[in-house]
């Protein structure tokens, strides 16, 4: 078993938070993990990505080879498409629908959405709105994580435990908000027919 996940977004959107949760959950489930991340110049408002690889066998490369990603999770819809060359045939695309428009030549939204929807196995959701409804728009990333949980080689319990560990220092309220976001994300995809 090996699962390759690409996490995408714009610097500051919380990609590394998702990565940390996956890392912790995998390690606690006695699985091997490799997770590559971007530091330095490109973090400043630019496109960022993280490669996450989870396996019950030894993992060699820190980078996922092209065409080998099982899932691409993106917190920004255009960033999702930037990494399509990594996607495996029949791989899953999961993204939040809210654009991050810090550039002048951002594509037209309708065209962008129809491009995304033209791919099979696509989950396009307004995770930000859900996070806002829960009173914590920062948890958009956690809603998305919930939405893909059923595709991951990790149990819900292990992911929830990892969320608790990550937010431990921030107190009970923040932990619960994030668990709520995770569960809400799960609900949404369980209602989708894929």
């Amino acid at each position, binding site marked *: 078993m090996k699962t390759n996940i690409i996490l995408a977004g714009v610097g500051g959107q919380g990609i590394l938070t998702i990565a940390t949760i996956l890392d912790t959950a995998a390690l606690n489930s006695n699985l091997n993990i490799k997770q590559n991340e971007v530091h330095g110049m490109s973090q400043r408002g630019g496109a960022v990505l993280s490669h996450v690889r989870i396996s019950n066998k030894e993992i060699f490369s820190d980078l996922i080879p092209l065409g080998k990603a099982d899932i691409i999770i993106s917190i920004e819809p255009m960033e999702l*498409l930037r990494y*399509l060359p990594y996607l495996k045939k029949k791989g899953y695309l999961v993204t939040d629908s809210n654009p991050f428009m810090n550039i002048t030549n951002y594509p037209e939204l309708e065209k962008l959405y129809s491009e995304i929807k033209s791919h099979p196995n696509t989950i396009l959701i307004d995770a930000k709105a859900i996070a806002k409804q829960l009173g914590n728009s920062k948890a958009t990333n956690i809603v998305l994580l919930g939405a893909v949980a059923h595709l991951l080689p990790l149990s819900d319990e292990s992911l929830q435990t990892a969320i608790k560990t990550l937010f431990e220092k921030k107190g009970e309220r923040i932990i619960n908000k994030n668990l709520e976001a995770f569960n809400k994300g799960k609900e949404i995809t369980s209602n989708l027919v894929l």
Partner: protein
Amino acid sequence: MIKLLLGNEALAQGAIDAGISGVYSYPGTPSTEITEYIQKSKTAKELNIHSKWSVNEKTAMEAALGMSYAGKRAMTVMKHVGLNVAADVFMNMSISGINGGLVVVVADDPSMHSSQNEQDSRNYGRFAMIPILEPSNQQEVYDITKYAFYLSEQMGLPIMIRMVTRLSHSRTGIEVSERKLQNKINLPKTPHQFQLIPIYARNRYQHLIEIQTDSKESSENSLFNKYIDGPNTSIGIIASGIAYNYVLENFEDDKCPYPILKISQYPLPKKQVKKIFDKCKKILVLEDGAPFIEELVSDYFSEHKKVIGRLTGHVNRVGELNPDNIANALGFNDKITEDIPSIVTGRPPELCVGCAHRDLFEAINKLKKENSQQQVFGDIGCYALGVLPPYESINTLIDMGASINMAKGASDAGIHPSIAIIGDSTFTHSGMTGLLDAVIENSPITVIISDNSAVAMTGAQDSAASGRLINICKGIGVDKNHLKIITPLHKNLDKNIDIIRNEINYKGTSVVIAQRPCVQLSKDKKDKIKKEQQMILN
């Protein structure tokens, strides 16, 4: 025990467990997290391990050498271009040798993710004639770091550990082992070892040449170099560091049919290279960075009949390796992947919303409209983003501290206005000496120190310049009538333009300190800095 660590953190943990007494560094991507991990480590604090940032890589390496002189284990950490700054001590401490174990960690950045070049530090290691260790994965990073200190004391030489970005910035589970106790103070026993006046330096150089035999022997027997046999001898693979990992990735389910020589310790183990050379028809060399091994193992006039790699076009000559370009080199190029849809546009990095550099560039651009002759010499830091749209304010970006000296040289050539823009930390790193050159000749340049009181690009580490800039400039001899402080905020735009314009018109060296804390800093820290700055002004 298994710990989830970044490659850089595994290195730091390895150094703590090897019993270091100090780490000396200047921040620089992709090396920064090594020192930060030690700064945050409880164990390191309890053991009183020195970890405060140094002013630059040269001061860092010299301090590490001083700790080694005293008999204790020390580490110095930098990015590849940082070693250029420390090259003086680096080249000479291989002549003096060391006392307590001394490890030089250099993180190279193939593909220039956050750098202005992709120089390969192995060339420096060979230049200084010291052993180089090049781990292939994060577990090996931990193990090799512990070994490096042992090897350093055994050989009496500094040891280089060469990291690359992907190794530094990947996280995985690391098995850590027990910690060695720190060395006690123990002064050098060899007479004249550290006194490199010519008469003693010649002896030391002779000694360095002589111990090369031991160094080669150590590589031949190293646990980190290994030959793995394979039945198909049409190709033999020499793979160093992370390249070895990418080779294994391509054969994850089957055994690699070709013989492989994995290299993680230099000088190159010649006997092992000869073995694979004699056995195989062709040799494919895979290494991240420069064609360092490839050049060594190709004959001078070989026309590359036998050795293939980056020099022959079998592997990309520039840019980092990855599992895909290695797959191509191995002949697996049948993969069909989707293209990036044409509607996807580029998203380059940009200055943060509210960043003080933005207000400064706005002022600089207005002044450019008044005088199209204006040239702006830039420097290394977040403000380097001023090269890109929407500002495009900066004409040059070369190396740490170059802004001031280039502005001076251009001014000597007759350019006016000649403006240097340099960050506070870059100024104390390498700008102060250049300012002295300008002051001595009273060169008509305007130096703008964009002071955000942090080493912002690498994660807002403490800046050595904080609270000291005004006194430093005065001390260097800047005329106090031409040493101005501005606050780069939109509401001050016109006022700031007037101040900078006046200084540009002054026919001598002027300094404008544009002072506003980095927006990435916490509110408490910003408030503290502002309070300090106000006190200094009063």
